[in-house]
């Protein structure tokens, strides 16, 4: 009897220790980024583009990378939505439950989910060569869209699978087509989940460097053209860290802080949106 209790106590202790390790690592990361990033933070960082000699320590900021990242990831997210929504709707509204096609599609999405972002970078670059594109905003959008569309599709598929079949039937019974049911009932019922899938994918996209390293290039100017190279935040961090100048490296920490804040804002924003759009959901 007592040995049972002792065993439980020991394991409980180990579990608490493990949790503390995990917890402290996480806190340590945030603390490090905050402590290192805050001193180098200033308004110039987020309002100016790099001036001549920026990477040698002269003045300027990373507005080019902030804007570039948002444009690039925004574009990629938009493209992914137009790919993911039809996939998820087809799987859950049109296809039979036992459809072989959908089984294959789901396996494919699993595979695509796991494909490393560097492979998407290399594959995207191959496509660009094929199309005669050079490193550009468009190239980056293609690569990041490839990276995040499986994340988004799987998220959407998962929430749409939870929509009760009877709800679809209620709509069919009123004479609605599958398409009308998909757009007006399934999308609305799954809206919170769809939004969160979109935002998670956006977060993944904005933080990824390996997929844009060859495809988007880098530019010190802000540009809105699809065919010009665009700067991105993760690469800006990477390049600044790579310089031998401490002032520039410190700006890398500040840039890391900016990226972290953006990602956190998205995460918090998604929570608020989800709560807001859950109003009509039928339990």
């Amino acid at each position: 009897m007592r040995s049972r209790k002792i065993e439980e106590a020991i394991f409980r202790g180990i579990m608490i220790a493990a949790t503390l390790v995990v917890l402290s690592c996480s806190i340590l990361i945030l603390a490090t980024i905050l402590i290192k990033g805050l001193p180098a933070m200033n308004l110039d960082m987020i309002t100016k583009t790099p001036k001549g000699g920026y990477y040698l320590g002269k003045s300027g900021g990373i507005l080019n990378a902030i804007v570039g990242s948002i444009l690039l990831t925004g574009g990629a997210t938009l493209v992914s939505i137009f790919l993911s929504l039809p996939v998820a709707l087809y799987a859950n509204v049109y296809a039979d439950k036992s459809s072989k096609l959908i089984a294959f599609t789901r396996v494919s999405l699993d595979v695509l989910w796991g494909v490393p972002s560097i492979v998407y970078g290399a594959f995207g670059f191959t496509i660009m060569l094929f199309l005669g594109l050079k490193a550009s905003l468009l190239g980056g959008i293609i690569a990041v869209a490839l990276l995040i569309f499986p994340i988004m599709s799987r998220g959407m598929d998962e929430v749409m699978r939870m929509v009760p079949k009877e709800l679809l039937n209620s709509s069919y019974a009123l004479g609605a087509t599958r398409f009308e049911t998909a757009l007006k009932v399934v999308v609305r019922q799954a809206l919170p989940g769809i939004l969160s899938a979109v935002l998670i994918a956006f977060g993944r996209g904005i933080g990824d460097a390996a997929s844009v390293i060859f495809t988007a290039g880098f530019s010190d100017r802000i540009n809105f053209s699809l065919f010009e190279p665009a700067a991105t935040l993760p690469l800006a961090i990477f390049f600044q860290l790579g310089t031998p100048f401490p002032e520039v490296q410190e700006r890398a920490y500040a840039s890391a802080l900016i990226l972290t804040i953006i990602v956190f804002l998205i995460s918090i924003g998604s929570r608020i949106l989800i709560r807001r759009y859950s109003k009509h959901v039928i339990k």
Partner: protein
Amino acid sequence: MESTSHITVQNLNVYYGDNHALKDITINIPDKQITAIIGPSGCGKTTLLRAFNRLIDTVDGVRITGKVLVDGEDIFDPRADVTMVRKKMGLLSQRPYPLPMSIFDNVAYGPKIHGIRKKKVLEEIVEHHLKMASLWEEVRDRLHEPASRLSIGQQQRLCLARGLAVEPEFILADEPTSALDPKSSLYIENRFRELRSQFSIILVTHILRQARRLADYIVFLYLGELIEHGPVNEIFENPREERTREYIRGVIS
């Protein structure tokens, strides 16, 4: 009473995979009356009801032979427009499933889909049908709240209003009171009595007393076969078949 029929079933067979769920059903459903489909659990009542509006199509691996004529046209004809078939039938299911939108939009959903765009007209339609389902008084001030906030009984009446708003000829109801409390059930039953003059109502029920109270015509199914059908008094007072008698007396269930 007239004996013309707008729903005629001819040699209908339904198979779920290997399961022969409806066996060679042939029947005329009388107009402007309440027809109750009764029978023990699993005998195919829901299946028959769902054949009428072709919701059965949405089941995986289902196979159907035979004909269901609605207004003289075979609804299983490949050329038939399934949305138009369904528009003729309002459905009330066992548990209410309001759509994920406001009370107003729930009722307006059907008319909107079928092409009515004018706000004024939609408002009239919503008010009219909520009144028909006797829900108007309770929700007139909260039309734009989510439908999920209504009580179950209210939700069921909302589903009734939603079904009526597409101006169907038939109302199909699958044990519409089984999830409701006695008071809400009574509400629905009273609605049905009033609607009987305008619609042909087909009601699946487990409650024999409800069938007796409400129905004009009874269809008795047993293990996928149509055993007996006829006016309510005939079936309850003087059934021809032994199995009907036993079911009504509660020997088989």
